[in-house]
Structures are given as C-alpha cells and as structure tokens.
C-alpha cells in the first residue's frame, strides 16, 4: 500500500451547508474562476484529457450570447462504473460543478445526459435537482439544469454524438472542427465535461488550485477515481493519486497471477506483465478514464479481444466505412486465423487495417479500436493463433 496514495477528494465531505461551495464561488468573477481552473492543471476525466480550464476559457470567449453546459453521464466504456458511483453518492457536487461552469462561461442552461442503463438513478437525481434549483434561486444564479436520457448507445458518449442525441436525432458523430466550444449542442458554444471533471472543479474551488496541484504528477494533476474489475479480490471504486506504475497497482489489486491489465476500457490499451514496471498510469504514460480490468493466467486473451470486437462491431454507428467495415473485418479476421483458415501472417494485415482505422475513422470510437486490437495482438500473438 505504501506505493499507492489513497485520496478522498471526490467522495469526501462537501460542506455541511447545502451548496456552500457554489454560493462562495458565485462571488468570484468569471475570469477568477477560469484562471483558478487553468492554474489547477485539471485535465478532463472522461479519458481524452483536454485541459478543462482552457475548454471553459474558449467557450467564455465566444461572443454568441446563448451557451450551454453539458455533463456527459453516458458512461459506457466497458470496465467503467465510477460515474454511476459518483452520481449515487455525491450528485450535489456534480450539479454544483455544472452551475460553477455556467457562471464561468455565461450560460443559463445545463443538460445532464444520463445513459439509459442508469435510469434507476433518475428519481434521486431529480429530487436533488429540486434542492439545487431552490438554492440557485436563493443565490440569484440564473442557471437551470435538465436531465436528458440516453437509450442504450455507447457512441453517444462521444461528445458530438451526444449533442445530436439531445437534439432528438440519431447519435452520429459530427465532423470536427468546429469544436463544441464554438458549436456544440443546438449549434451553440458548449462546455461538455465528464461527471468526475465537474466534481473536480468544485473541489478546486473549495481548496484552491495550489492544494489540488499537490496531488499527482506535473502531467497528471489531482486524483482519479478508478473502476477496478476482472480478476481481482478488490473489485470496486478506488480513488487514487495519478502517476503510479502499473506494477504498484497490480501489487495492490492483483490476485497474484495477473498476466495483463486493460487500461482505459475496450478502447484503451492492454499492458502485458513484462511491461508493468515501465508503465505509468496517467497522461504521461497510459491515460485512462478510470477503467482498469485485470486478467489472470486462466484467461484467453483471444476471448478478451473477441469480446471487445463484438462490442465495437455492435456499437459502431455505421456512419463511416473505416469503422463500420473495419470492425467487422477485424472480427472475421481473428476468427479465420484461430480456425486455421488464414495463415498467422494474416494478423499483420489486420494490424495494418486497424492502423488505417486509427487515421481514417471519423470519431474516437473507430480510431481507438486499434488501441486494444494492436496491444493485444502484438503482446499475445501465440494466443491469437493456437
């Protein structure tokens, strides 16, 4: 345990008085809030890791008077369940973060896009939202929040697909640019952040950027909520400081026989045992939205990859050819090699195909299939063949 630092920032105490941090933050100017956010070095907790403060600054700078704040609660990455936990335990912090962002960028309306799988959370969230609106009114903060539901589509976690879905359309990603800070939901400047990012924003406002920066490393500030699952005796939610090595992580959470860890979900990277020592969890190493899945020696990495490809093939929106056809071909391809219908050298062709998807697919889904595909095929080649 000495090598891992536990943190209690996300789930820890907010304030005794309801929405106290929001009330005190509303006394600051928009510039003060954004400066504090930029100084904290906070990077988005959804996985992509863009600097949150800059996102807020770009949106604040837009001259268009109507702007929106969107909370991405469409947590669909396999192996991730931390947003569900956050929304269950500390929804007040999430709504506070959205309201603070509203003040910073000059928005009057926020949307939370909650995945359909989490519909059971809705009654509690609505009840808390009533409490929020009461307090916002009392603080004279003109910012309302509405919850919109998804209906079982992984791709809607992609920000522009999420906007399409809120607008009542198929969740098909848009071309970028323009980026959301210029043209987001309803084609207005929009800040879209992950659930955990908004909670971090509140904690930065509470403790200050300097305190926040004491956690983590220079490239990965703060703590991170990890969703830990697979072959581990300690499956669950763990809030840890960023910047640890995977070896330290496995020493704490492994079952003594860990052969690989999938960092960042199906769209992330598979790290084999021999690379545990050199792999750092964070933006300077392998980034993650928090999903950590451990596999021990009893698991077939072929089955793991097959499961991921099944997932991507189903969840691809079908809009662009590289992703729609690519996912199908990768799946067919590993099948053929396994059954001996294709020579093992065919895997090299499949690796080329996944590389092509990486540069030609329209959105993050199609581009990231190559991450797990190449890291599993390259590190566990014999398991793919025999």
């Amino acid at each position, binding site marked *: 345990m000495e090598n891992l630092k536990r943190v209690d920032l996300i789930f820890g105490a907010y304030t005794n008085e309801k929405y106290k941090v929001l009330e005190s933050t509303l006394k600051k100017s928009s510039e003060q809030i954004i400066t504090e956010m930029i100084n904290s070095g906070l990077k988005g907790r959804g996985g992509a890791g863009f600097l949150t403060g800059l996102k807020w600054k770009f949106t604040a700078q837009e001259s268009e008077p109507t702007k929106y704040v969107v909370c991405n609660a469409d947590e669909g990455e396999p192996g991730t369940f931390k947003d569900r936990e956050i929304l269950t335990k500390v929804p007040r912090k999430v709504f506070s973060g959205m309201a603070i962002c509203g003040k910073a960028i000059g928005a009057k309306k926020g949307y939370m896009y909650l995945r359909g799988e989490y519909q059971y959370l809705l009654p509690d969230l609505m009840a808390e939202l009533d409490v929020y609106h009461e307090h916002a009114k009392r603080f004279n903060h003109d910012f309302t929040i509405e919850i919109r539901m998804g209906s079982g589509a992984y791709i809607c976690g992609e920000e522009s697909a999420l906007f399409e879905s809120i*607008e009542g*359309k198929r*969740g098909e990603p848009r071309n970028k640019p323009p980026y959301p800070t210029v043209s987001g939901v309803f084609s207005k400047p929009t800040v879209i952040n992950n659930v955990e990012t908004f909670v971090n924003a509140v904690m930065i406002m509470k403790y200050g950027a300097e305190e926040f920066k004491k956690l983590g490393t220079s490239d990965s500030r703060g703590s991170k909520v990890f969703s830990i699952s*697979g072959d581990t005796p300690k499956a669950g939610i763990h809030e840890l400081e960023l910047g640890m090595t995977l070896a330290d992580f496995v020493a704490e959470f492994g079952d003594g026989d860990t052969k690989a860890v999938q960092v960042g979900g199906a769209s992330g990277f598979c790290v084999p045992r021999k690379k545990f020592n050199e792999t750092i969890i964070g933006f300077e190493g392998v980034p993650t939205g928090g999903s950590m899945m451990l596999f021990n020696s009893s698991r077939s990495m072929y089955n793991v990859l097959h499961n991921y490809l099944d997932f991507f093939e189903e969840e691809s929106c079908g809009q662009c050819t590289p992703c729609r056809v690519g996912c199908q071909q990768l799946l067919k391809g590993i099948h053929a090699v396994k059954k001996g219908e294709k020579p093992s050298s065919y895997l090299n062709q499949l690796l080329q195909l996944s590389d092509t998807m990486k540069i030609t697919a329209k959105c993050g889904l199609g581009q990231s299939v190559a991450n797990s595909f190449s890291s599993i095929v390259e590190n566990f080649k014999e398991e793919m063949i025999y």
Partner: protein
Amino acid sequence: MTETKELVKKLADKYGRARESLMPILQGVIEEERFVSSEAMTEIARELDIASAEVYGTATFYSFLDTQPRGKYVIRVCKTITCDMHGKKKVIEKIEDLLKIKLGETTQDKKFTLLTTNCLGWCHQGPVMLINSTPYPSLDENKVTEIIMDYMSK
C-alpha cells in the same frame, strides 16, 4: 382514438413538439408499451410534423428503443467482458430454462423477453442484468432463479 394515439398525444403535450422532444417521447412510449410500434411512429411523426422516416431512423438507432413487440418485463443480461468472465453464460442458460425461451425470444404470455446488452456499468459486481430499468448485480444461478420466480408470480 386508439390507446397508442392517445399516449403519443399525451407525451407530446408533456414534452413539447420540437425535434428535441423526440427522444423523451420515444422513451415514454417504451415505458408504457415496451416497444415502438409502426402506429406509434406514424403518430409521433404526425404530432411533431416530421417525416415518419426520421422517427424510424432515430428509434432504430438506439438499442433500448425496441421496434419489435416485447414482453412486459424486458430482461437484458450484460454480455461485456467482466460479466462474461464471471459466468454470464450460466445466468442466461438458467433464465432460458426457467422461462422456456431462447435468447432473443418472448414468452407466449408476453410477460418476459430475454435479451443481452452491452456493458451496464456494474463490472465489479458481474454478472448483472436489467429488468426494465432495475439493475440486479452479483448474479449466480440461485440468485437469478429467485429474482425470476419473483417476477413470474407478479
């Protein structure tokens, strides 16, 4: 006025008739009727004054917006990796056995439909299933039997 027509009108009154109301209306139809029939799609198109193809295109995009008739209780078992590793197959077989249907089918009395779905966000407590919108984590053969029997007696 048919029941579906009435339902769509009621939902449109509640959520409005702008394009952005389409998802909440479709979700409302699912809540009541468990699937979006072609009648419902035509009615929604009329209420929102958009092409029925637009309604169809949107509805068929989302896996929870079923366009095939479903049972009163829709069971969706998570099939993604950690649930797969921890015994999803046995759970599905047990449900098939109890309800006497195969995956993808609906019982004759239209009470249950058995489906699989992608990651439900309970990877630390797999296998997991949803029955309508209620999650049931940490399943094994005994636990799933208990839950299904309970629903059967409802």
